[in-house]
């Protein structure tokens, strides 16, 4: 009897604690989302809309623009996210060491890229990867290539320049989430392990990884969400070119809404497909990574 009133009270407190943030998110996300969904059932240019049912969703099946951009976007995600998260994790673990000198310096430096404005680093990246840029100079001088590569203008290389830019820019950002989680762990656990004779690798897989599991799950979902909505980097670095080789799905949605004669219904339909893809990937991630409370 006493237990159940306590439970009731706790449940009420629990709901009170989540209510403010939840109401804000639900109101400002779900009302627009519902409207966007209704819009996705309409066809026409600008404000000349008529109900079209699933016409927009059918249209995507034959749309090469959609297929190319969604393909590019998934390609970025598959290559970039694992490399970036591993790098972020590795650096965080290294910087978590008690004895390492210059920790603060390294930490600040590695964090810096994510505050750099896209306008400025895009100019620089294009300089570095230009045919007469630093990268070509180095590759030529060590004999890896015979003639300079036009990185930004080559359909395949341009994708890799973008991936490199993303890894460069966001590894330090994800590092802080790992770092803060590592700081929440009890140091005595490591010391005990050390006394037991565990080496770095053992304590990493036996202690660090399990502690970080919820954060790895979090960062991977975050990274998927961000990469599938990738926009700024590509617009600033390659503008989606050459041809459509680096164009992302977000850039395509933007074009459909604001660059072309607007087709808001179709843009909304494409957005919903992106949502479904992210949700599906997230479910898979949850199965693979296994969230804490599973």
């Amino acid at each position: 009897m006493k237990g159940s009133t306590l439970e009731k009270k706790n449940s009420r407190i629990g709901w009170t604690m989540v209510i403010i943030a939840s109401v804000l998110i639900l109101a400002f996300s779900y009302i627009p989302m519902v409207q966007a969904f209704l819009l996705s059932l309409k066809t026409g240019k600008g404000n000349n809309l008529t109900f079209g049912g699933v016409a927009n969703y059918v249209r995507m099946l034959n749309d090469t623009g959609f297929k190319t951009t969604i393909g590019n976007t998934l390609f970025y995600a598959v290559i970039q996210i694992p490399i970036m998260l591993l790098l972020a994790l590795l650096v965080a673990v290294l910087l978590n060491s008690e004895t390492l000198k210059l920790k603060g310096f390294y930490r600040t430096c590695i964090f810096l890229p994510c505050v750099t404005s896209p306008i400025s680093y895009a100019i620089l990246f294009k300089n570095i990867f230009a045919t007469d840029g630093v990268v070509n100079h180095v590759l030529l001088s060590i004999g890896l290539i015979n003639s300079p590569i036009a990185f930004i203008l080559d359909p395949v290389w341009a994708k890799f320049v973008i991936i490199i830019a993303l890894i460069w820019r966001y590894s330090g950002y994800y590092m802080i989430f790992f770092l803060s989680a590592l700081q929440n762990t009890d140091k005595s656990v490591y010391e005990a392990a050390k006394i037991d004779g565990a080496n770095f690798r053992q304590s990493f897989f036996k202690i660090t990884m399990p502690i970080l599991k919820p954060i790895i799950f979090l960062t991977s979902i975050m990274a998927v969400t961000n990469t599938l909505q990738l926009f700024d980097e590509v617009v600033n670095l390659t503008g989606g070119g050459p041809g459509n080789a680096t164009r992302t799905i977000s850039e395509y949605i933007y074009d459909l809404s604001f660059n072309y004669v607007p087709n808001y219904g179709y843009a909304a339909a494409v957005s919903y497909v992106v949502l479904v893809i992210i949700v599906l990937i997230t479910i898979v991630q949850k199965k693979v990574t296994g969230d804490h409370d599973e």
Partner: protein
Amino acid sequence: MRKKVSRVAISMCAAASMVLSVVAPAMTVVAETTDEPVELTVWSWDKTMNGTTFEVADSLDDDVTVNFVEMSKADCLQKIHTVLASGVTDDLPDIVSISDLNAQGYLMSYPDAFLPMDDYINYDDFASYKKDMVSYDGVGYGVPYDTGVAALFYRTDYMEEIGVTDEDMQDLTWDEYLALGEKLKEKGHMLQTYNPNDIAEFQIMLQSTGKWFTDNDGNADFVNNDALKECYDVFKKLNESDFCQVVSDWTGFAGAINNGDVACVMRGSWITSTIMAGEDQSGKWKMAPIPKMSTEGATHYSNQGGSSWFVLKNSKNAEAAAKFLGKTFGGSVEMYDSLMKSNNIIGTYLPASDCEAVEAASDFFSGQQINKTLVEWEALIPSVNTGAFSAEAQSALLAVTPNILNGSDLDTELAAAEEQFNQTIQ
């Protein structure tokens, strides 16, 4: 216990609302009194150019004051779309600028959103190709503003090195022009920049023949468009040549000019400000008509870029804004004269074509009467119906351009682009 809980909750809410109430009053809009001049809000881009223009216009009309809100061009166009698509009518700007190639799209998308301007300006006072761009279904909506008369800017010192005179530059064909590249290369100069991912020059080349990416009905005109095919022919030659400075964006493009890498630049006349940023090159540049294509109807004259002003019908001061535009952009030679003097802006208002500033000679361009020449050319530009789908057409073409450059069959690729175009515009 329960009291404590609610107290915490209440104090949290109180704290939040306190912070918010500090912010809120800063937001309230000050009401206008009727005695004051009407304040017109303008959404546009490029304060140096468009902002100055409105300052000048503002100074000519005592009935209004202009509040110029600057955004980058893409942002401005996006914002206008959002506002009009939402159907919201409060807090609308009175005047917005829209680039000419986008204008038809806006007029088609938002019926009844823009104020017809036929009663406020006389469209016969403007270059005829501009009128077509800002009208829809026979009604004029836009007030034509600037133009980008296309020209071939070249380095006189480099041309001298290869024995080419100013006279030689006046009536070039594309073959003759490209042949200059070989000679320049021997002297260590590049002919021009080349960006395989940018077909903006096609706009100039197509319009010089009176053609466009689309036909009069807005359908793709790719496969049977000889002018477009010639564009790709030239583009391929540039791609295969060794006398072009390959660039990937505006920075590289501007850098190649200011760095003295290239001998020629073909663009709308607004490029002069970029060229003139290389102050050490003063007196080393001149301007010639663009090379002529071999397609039927080809001329030496074309246009690239330009924008116009539109009044939003539901804005608070729509009427006053329309009158203001009519008085200034549609009626003041003095304004255009002053703009030409201060910013080299070439308007499309015909009565201003013999204003004082037109006669001025430019030191930077070796004493050439730049403005006068451009105004003369402006009258010779073939009029084309650019329709609403220029952006879509260029995207579709850009998507197949890498294949074309790699030697794939032109007709096949253009047909594929046409299919993609039809996909996009449905």
